[in-house]
């Protein structure tokens, strides 16, 4: 059953969206944290994703091989191997809720933690994955996920559907990453 509401009602509902609620503290990483907290940042194409048993043989994890086109930070070689939780061996599939999955052929910018003696892992489980899509009209590569970064010292509310928040080109995204990397290097030099 459908009814047409009054314009007043809709207007009030819209207006109420601008009201914030007192809430909780600390949430996911902001973009600068992701950049500064990652030892390796690379753009490339997934060429292989092979599930295997973990060293303790209790978990299935997927070993992802990325053919790297560009390193934005770090850079061990032409291919980059990292692991994500979950994967399928035989008829059984292990899933860790929220963990990213990768398929050969996909393109992404990945932000990785590198620990001595172990294969790199994605920063913050899923926060260090920025997927790439090719725009049909311009044929340019776009980074799908939003880059959430504080412009100044004041808190900035994140509004869904904001006209200013659009996918950015891979080149723009790379420049944003390198700007943050340079900021960090400058702070380190001081």
């Amino acid at each position: 059953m459908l009814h047409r509401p009054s314009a007043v009602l809709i207007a009030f509902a819209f207006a109420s969206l601008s009201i914030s609620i007192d809430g909780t503290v600390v949430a996911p990483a902001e973009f600068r944290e992701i950049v500064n907290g990652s030892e390796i940042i690379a753009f490339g194409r997934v060429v292989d994703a092979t599930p295997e048993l973990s060293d303790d043989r209790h978990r299935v994890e997927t070993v992802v091989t990325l053919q790297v086109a560009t390193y934005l930070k770090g850079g061990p070689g032409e291919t980059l191997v990292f692991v994500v939780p979950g994967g399928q061996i035989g008829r059984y599939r292990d899933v860790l809720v929220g963990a990213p999955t990768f398929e050969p052929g996909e393109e992404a910018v990945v932000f990785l933690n590198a620990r001595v003696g172990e294969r790199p892992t994605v920063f913050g489980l899923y926060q260090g994955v920025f997927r790439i899509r090719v725009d049909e009209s311009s044929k340019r590569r776009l980074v799908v996920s939003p880059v959430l970064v504080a412009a100044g010292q004041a808190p900035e509310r994140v509004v869904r559907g904001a006209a200013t928040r659009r996918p950015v080109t891979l080149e723009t995204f790379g420049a944003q990453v390198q700007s943050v990397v340079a900021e960090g290097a400058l702070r380190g030099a001081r």
Partner: protein
Amino acid sequence: MRRSVFAFAFAILLVWAASPLLAYLKLGTTTQTRTVNLRWNAFPIRYFITDRGAPQVTSMQFQSAASRAFATWHAVETAETSSEFVGFTRANPVTGDGMTVLGFTSRPDLDRVLAATNFRLDTSTGEIVESDIFFNTATSWAVDPAGVTGRHDLESIAVHEIGHLLGLSHSAVGETEVIPGGRRVLGAESVMFPIAFAPGTIHDRSLKADDVAGITDIYPTTSSHRSRGSISGRVTKNGNGVQGAHVVAFNPAAGTLVGGFALNESGAFTIAGLEPGIHLLRVEPLDDGDLDSFFDSTFVVDLDFRVRFHDQVVVVPAGGGVRDVEIRVTPK
């Protein structure tokens, strides 16, 4: 008449302001022939607790908190779930042992992950073989009734993870803001919100309307089929479906928001488990979220559209559904 419209609108202003956006999503998996929702086919769910505590939390305290968290879900009157604590075990909360185990473990490879739910699934049937929940010892935990400043409330996080164990995915909840060096939640009413809760807070021990609708959708009681309703339709842009659009149903009388997603290329959505009554619909792009925490990599989400309110009020009937709602959005 005019006065009553204003009074109604003001009431909406109050309740909407007090309720951030919510949306439930069910976990699913593909078998050799089809996509199925993850759900337990037999109850009670029999679970073990690892016999090792963590600093400030003993295994007995862990068991009590986990038991309360299970009970929170089982108390939903419109859904039918149950569990049974079998005992303590030396086993770790990892897959591969055929037992459903909850407990502490060290996962330095999963930085920033407080806790997580694992499933082992049989892809030939879609059945859950086992499920485990680990709580990362890299985090400081607390079980005190009022919470402890600087430490995460184990019961709150357990409620979230048990929601996963029962088949719910993440919910696209509320508002956040970015601040220098971090991101902060402004309003998070659903326990299935993927972002870490603040240390010291305990308000996420309680389910919200979106959580109740989600669990009711998966495990409805016989009576809930008669008492609850649904809304289904399509989100379109220039005549084409908008995959991944986030649709939120606001019930002004109850002051609740429940949502869902357009889950295919035609932009089709269904929101079930709704209380009967008037609902307003709002569609928004999930352009502030980490898409990987909601969908797998092959699911292409359209983020290029403006927020839109449906221009008609929807009246959900008890025991029935409103169908063929079409919400047209425009590009940014």
